[in-house]
């Protein structure tokens, strides 16, 4: 093992220790004392706007070269309706009753169990952006992260035989200064992406005025995906 890695590990654990000790000492330290601005990338999924077209999924698969049958993002359709059966509301075989969709993908936890459990550090937080991503060359394929992710939002990419997750297109688009592929492809503006730590960003402004929810916040993982649910009046 190179000395460089050792050094990095030492710095990392030193950082970890200070993170653990800081609240105990009862003092707050500015996390980003050295760097001017630490982004916190968030994505907002607006259920009111999503029509379930699946363009986001197609765009993601293309941008990230995912093999057939594997996706980092899917849509769950939620209604009383079972495919191939008549709608429980209107009785028709094809209808738009009560249909809503939920984006299923890595929630980009601030306190990510997948990163904690990964024995090799393959599942890690990108130093610059804070985005949870993969170093495929380190992953041993032990699937610990898959069991540990409370959202079942990780997968095995059978092209590479290693674990994978939605990382906001960190390597495919963000690094080129583009928005994530799904956000670009959404014709209905159901996906909004940006830096929540920047008060001038559109997401910050949106989150300031809109009620949004997070999925299963009780796990304490502090997900960075926000959802704006359909709220029906008078139901």
């Amino acid at each position: 093992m190179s000395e460089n890695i050792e050094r990095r590990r030492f710095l990392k654990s030193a950082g970890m220790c200070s993170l653990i000790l800081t609240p105990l000492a009862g003092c707050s330290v500015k996390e980003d004392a050295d760097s001017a601005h630490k982004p916190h990338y968030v994505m907002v999924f607006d259920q009111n706007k999503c029509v379930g077209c699946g363009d986001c999924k197609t765009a993601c698969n293309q941008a990230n070269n995912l093999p057939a049958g594997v996706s980092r993002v899917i849509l769950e359709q939620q209604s009383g309706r079972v495919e191939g059966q008549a709608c429980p509301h209107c009785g028709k075989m094809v209808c738009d009753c009560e249909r809503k969709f939920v984006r299923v993908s890595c929630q980009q936890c601030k306190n990510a169990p997948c990163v904690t459990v990964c024995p090799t550090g393959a599942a890690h937080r990108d130093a610059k952006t804070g985005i949870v991503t993969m170093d495929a060359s380190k992953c041993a394929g032990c699937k610990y992260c898959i069991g540990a992710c409370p959202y079942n939002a990780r997968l095995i990419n059978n092209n590479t035989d290693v674990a994978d997750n939605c990382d906001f297109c960190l390597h495919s688009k963000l690094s080129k200064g583009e928005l994530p592929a799904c956000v670009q492809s959404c014709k209905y503006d159901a996906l909004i992406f940006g830096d929540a730590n920047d008060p001038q960003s559109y997401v910050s402004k949106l989150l300031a005025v809109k009620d949004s929810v997070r999925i299963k916040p009780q796990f304490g993982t502090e997900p960075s995906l926000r959802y704006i649910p359909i709220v029906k009046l008078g139901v």
Partner: protein
Amino acid sequence: MDTSMDFTLGLSQGVAWPWPIAVYLFFAGISGGALTIALALRFYLGQVENTAFLKAATLLSFVTISLGMLCLVLDLTNPLFFWRILVFYNLNSVMSIGVIALSVYIPLVAVVALLALEKELMAIPQLKFLAPIIAKLKGFRRPMEALALVLALSVCAYTGFLISALIRFPLINTSVLPALFIASGLSAGGASAKMLAVWLFKEPLHSGEMKILHGAEWPIMFAEAMFIFMIATALLTGNAGGQFAFAAFHEGVWASVFWIGVVGIGFAAPLLLNFATGKHFSHSAKAFYMSGMCAVVGMMCLRLFILLAGQNYAI
């Protein structure tokens, strides 16, 4: 507002850790349990000779942990990537810490077994070349055995910590799991080493050492049952997620594995064999092997139940 949206689909199908991992947990438990009992007994009685039980336990310990490693490697998505776990470390990860412990434990078990089986190995002419190595290692025997004892216990416990870090599964995500895995490892490891000692190393069925081991069995088994009971009550009286996972105990195929395998074969059968049969039978070799096998089967069922039923009841 917080609970007004949820999804139930997942991006990976099936369970993350299938049955080979349960087999690994089983082998690691047997290995750690058998060695812990043998070395604890050795220190407790101040033994210096190589007893049949020590020989059996060290041999068993080495063979089972090696088989366990095989299961672990074969379960990787690509077994050829195994070296990555050995090269890259993340000290926040229980698995990484386990790898460090195992990479000391496995060679140490090999050495401890080598010393315990000295006479047997030296009887094989092809192995004569080991003689100088054994002679050198002998000087460090005590400290190596002490370290092996600590590591054997850690290996038992670590398998519990390893899976209890999976927060999505209430049956698995409990703090009692490491203790349960130690207790069941000790009971099954002890039982299998006893059987091996009698069968392979011709230990008399009613020797003094065997008597002590028989005596230790019941309290360990009682502790094991207590821990299972604690997990079950914690789920039943816990929050909605816990109550949902409690169903593992009374519905589906895993409930049968639990009641037939863990409770029936693992606990009830040895009790019946020992206390509900005549003295003549309960002291026979047949009863000895039967109750030993029951303990081993019961432990395998327990690992299967915890790992697979546990993963089936995700919140």
